[in-house]
């Protein structure tokens, strides 16, 4: 009874606001600017790419979910699904507008696209051969996976409600502005920083934020005792496969047209992933005696992370080098974790933060206008300046992300509480946060 009426109350309270949004939201189709001509090939390409990138978020859920213990598997995958549900809506309501709305002070987008107003079926300047909505939804998938990446740092101990609020705030105050800086016509774009598919916006932003979150959150119970083993590595491998697959959409799709550049990005993506897998495997073999499947998977993901900012600017051979080098770099970073004693549980910082940084800097080394006439040459092609600019982009992104994340997370910790109580941590996220168990009598 009481519950029922509570629901009615909740509905009454929100119903009107939702209706208001609806009105706001009537999209203005058929407003194509002059000279923009829709291409069926490009439109297919971006839709398919968006679908591929969408699949990465559940793929990430599996990648992470296999690495936690049985009792936390649903809670972990659920974090990715929840982000998919919530940021899809956040992006449509205000996120896209903040990132890609008309520029305000080189820092953030305006409100012109609120509720997807003025985002229609006709092409827009930003991607002249595809519907504006196609660009929007492709970008949405980036906005979704980025906060999901952070969940790897707070695995197995975060309060679900706080996590949800966190990702909404983080997307709004961290992701949306940074996306604007580099892709929406903000100051980093003006500066000439190169980020083809999100090395800074996606990986450095999420990775460095993950570090802050993990430091505030503290270690898991049992960290360092060797008992926090992954419950299902085959799930990690399935996740890796979906990530690798989806990343083709991520990187090639960022060309926004099915042209030679997209194909080039596709090729270097595969090569860097392969090289990352390869070098992590051999590194472990040399240093630890055996090449692990988790190592290979981690190396592949690291290779994908590293090539992300560079994908549209570098040659296949450069991609192999970027991939070969990312593994030792990330491997070293992960060892640090043990030494410094912080618990970046699933290495969101170690792989995405560090790998993304290497990728952004490598772009400054290997970028070549022979690959992309619209880009810039890097150090190895005679232009040392780019490396400096990339460095600024890395620092600015990292600093801003870490600062904002710290503020958000501290406020949430004080108000809602960030971490579940210890006895719930023992029982696990699945039962305590979701009232479920992943497996029954298997």
């Amino acid at each position, binding site marked *: 009874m009481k519950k029922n009426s509570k629901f009615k109350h909740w509905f009454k309270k929100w119903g009107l606001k939702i209706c208001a949004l609806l009105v706001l939201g009537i999209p203005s189709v058929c407003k194509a600017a002059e000279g923009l001509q829709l291409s069926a090939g490009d439109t297919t390409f971006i839709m398919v790419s968006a679908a591929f990138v969408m699949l990465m978020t559940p793929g990430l859920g599996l990648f992470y979910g296999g690495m936690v213990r049985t009792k936390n598997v649903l809670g972990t995958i659920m974090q990715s699904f929840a982000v998919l549900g919530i940021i899809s809506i956040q992006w449509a309501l205000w996120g896209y507008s903040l990132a890609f709305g008309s520029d305000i002070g080189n820092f953030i987008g305006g409100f012109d696209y609120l509720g997807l107003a003025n985002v229609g079926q006709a092409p827009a300047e930003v991607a002249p051969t595809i519907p504006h909505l196609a660009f929007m939804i492709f970008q949405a998938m980036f906005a979704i996976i980025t906060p999901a990446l952070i969940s790897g740092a707070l695995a197995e101990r975060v309060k679900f409600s706080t996590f949800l609020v966190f990702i909404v705030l983080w997307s709004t105050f961290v992701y949306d502005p940074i996306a604007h800086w580099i892709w929406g016509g903000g100051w980093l774009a003006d500066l000439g920083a190169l980020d083809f598919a999100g090395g800074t916006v996606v990986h450095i932003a999420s990775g460095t934020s993950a570090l802050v979150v993990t430091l505030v959150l503290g270690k898991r119970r049992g960290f360092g005792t*060797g008992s*926090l*083993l*992954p419950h299902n590595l085959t799930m990690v491998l399935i996740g890796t496969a979906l990530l690798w697959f989806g990343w083709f959409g991520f990187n090639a799709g960022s060309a926004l047209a099915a042209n030679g550049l997209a194909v080039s990005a596709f090729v270097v993506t595969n090569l860097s992933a392969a090289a990352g897998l390869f070098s992590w495997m051999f590194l*472990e073999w040399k240093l*630890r*005696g*055996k090449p*692990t499947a*988790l*190592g290979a998977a*981690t190396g592949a993901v690291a290779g994908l992370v590293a090539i992300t900012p560079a994908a549209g600017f570098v040659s296949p051979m450069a991609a192999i080098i970027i991939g070969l080098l990312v593994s030792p770099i990330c*491997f070293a970073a*992960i*060892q640090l974790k*043990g030494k410094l004693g912080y618990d970046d549980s699933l*290495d969101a910082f170690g792989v995405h933060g560090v790998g993304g940084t290497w990728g952004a800097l490598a772009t400054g080394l290997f970028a070549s206008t022979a690959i992309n006439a619209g880009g810039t040459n890097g150090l190895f092609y005679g232009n040392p300046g780019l490396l400096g600019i990339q460095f600024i982009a890395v620092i600015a992104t990292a600093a801003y992300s870490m600062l904002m994340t710290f503020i958000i997370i501290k406020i949430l910790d004080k108000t809602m509480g960030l971490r579940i109580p210890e006895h719930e941590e023992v029982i696990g996220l699945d039962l305590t946060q979701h009232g479920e168990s992943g497996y029954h009598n298997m």
Partner: protein
Amino acid sequence: MKKIEAFIQPEQFEAVKKELFEANVHKMSVSQVKGCGQQKGYTESFRGQVVEVHLLPKTKIEIALNEDFVQPTIDAIIRGARTGCIGDGKIFVLDLPQCIRVRTGESGTDAIG
């Protein structure tokens, strides 16, 4: 009555089952455990963190039976399970004062078979 608990190599289970059936032992309960014994362990590593693995998969067989079946059963298990390598396992024999069949309520030696 006695209760036998045997821990054997999972690989040998089919052979043990065959020997038991031939020895006319058809009732048993089987489960998967991990065992630690003279067999040396392996190391696992998880993102560079190395973990000692001392436990390897074993199969546990539980058989309740009457006294006169005990020795033939032990022999059958040994026939099926012995490979001569470390890790072949152990057989434990416990006393079993009472046994009841759920379906009929019978008890004691009538219920066991």
